[in-house]
């Protein structure tokens, strides 16, 4: 194995193993190798965690006409400690004035998440724009109602309808 001569090659090997794109022989060779090599096994474990982190954290941004649509790529939590909340903050460092946030994959939200939505709303309003929500699940919808945020942020369950409302 060239693992120890070329660290980038090792990372590529690990990445391909974790993404299951190695053939059977290469998979077996790498498994036999890491069983005897603590160094490569440690790198494999860290890269595995890193890939999970990268994978679970994605926010998709797309533009439909002049509306910016934000959507979580996988199940997301908008809570104080969650990475998704940070991602949402960062995704918002732009001057878009028409924003639709798809909450369809948001499984949990707390006061920090609600505060973030309101903060985004204020930011957009300052740009003479508006922010609307799409597809909140029942739990999120209840929280929006309880906190009366639903009277400020319009909520839709149909994307076309939401886009047409801007």
């Amino acid at each position, binding site marked *: 194995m060239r693992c120890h001569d070329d660290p980038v090659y090792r990372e590529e090997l690990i990445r391909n193993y974790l*993404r299951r794109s190695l053939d059977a022989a290469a998979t077996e060779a790498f498994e036999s190798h890491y*069983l005897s090599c603590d160094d490569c096994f440690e790198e494999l474990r860290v890269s595995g965690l890193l890939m999970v982190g*990268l994978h679970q954290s994605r926010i998709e941004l797309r533009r439909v006409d002049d509306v910016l649509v934000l959507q979580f790529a996988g199940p997301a939590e908008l809570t104080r400690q969650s990475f998704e909340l940070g991602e949402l903050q960062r995704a918002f460092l732009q001057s878009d004035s028409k924003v639709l946030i798809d909450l369809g994959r948001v499984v949990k939200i707390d006061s920090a998440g609600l505060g973030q939505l309101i903060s985004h709303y204020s930011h957009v309003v300052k740009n003479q724009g508006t922010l609307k929500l799409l597809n909140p699940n029942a739990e999120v919808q209840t929280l929006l109602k309880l906190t009366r945020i639903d009277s400020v942020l319009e909520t839709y369950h149909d994307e076309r309808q939401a886009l047409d409302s801007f």
Partner: protein
Amino acid sequence: MTLDSSTLERYRLKLRYKVSYHLGSSCPDVDDIVQEAMLRFVHALQSEKIRNPESMAAFLSGICNNVIYEYKRRLHREPLCDQDPSSLEIPAGLGADLVELRQVIGLVMNQLAPREREILRAFFLEERDRSEICRTMGLSVMQFRVVLFRAKEKFREIYRLSLKRNAAKQH
């Protein structure tokens, strides 16, 4: 031929990773399979079946493959549940609860710089070639290497500290 207990434990941990990789970490029989493979391996050691110590890991891997294969055949005859090891998941055997791990990973990702995340994402998730990443991000191969390993090192360090902090909080 005998092995000390720390070597056997290291093998066990790694086998657990391998088995989870092939069967999915939600497979309820991962530990049983690892146990069976280790048992066969120790028997082979005791009966001097492994002549070349350098091929020990390959021998163990082969034993483990057989046990996984037998398990899959049995499962095929008496299906218990749907196994989907194809998705990217948190590998087993890390000694922590999955929810806690996900939280820690989330915190760690928050602390990486946007450029670091961009490079890691391009490399690990989009499977882009190193030369392509260098071209699109305006990096030399050396710079790419430095950024990649620095980001990974940073991830490793923050991850260790977060796990330690979490463990301390629980005690």
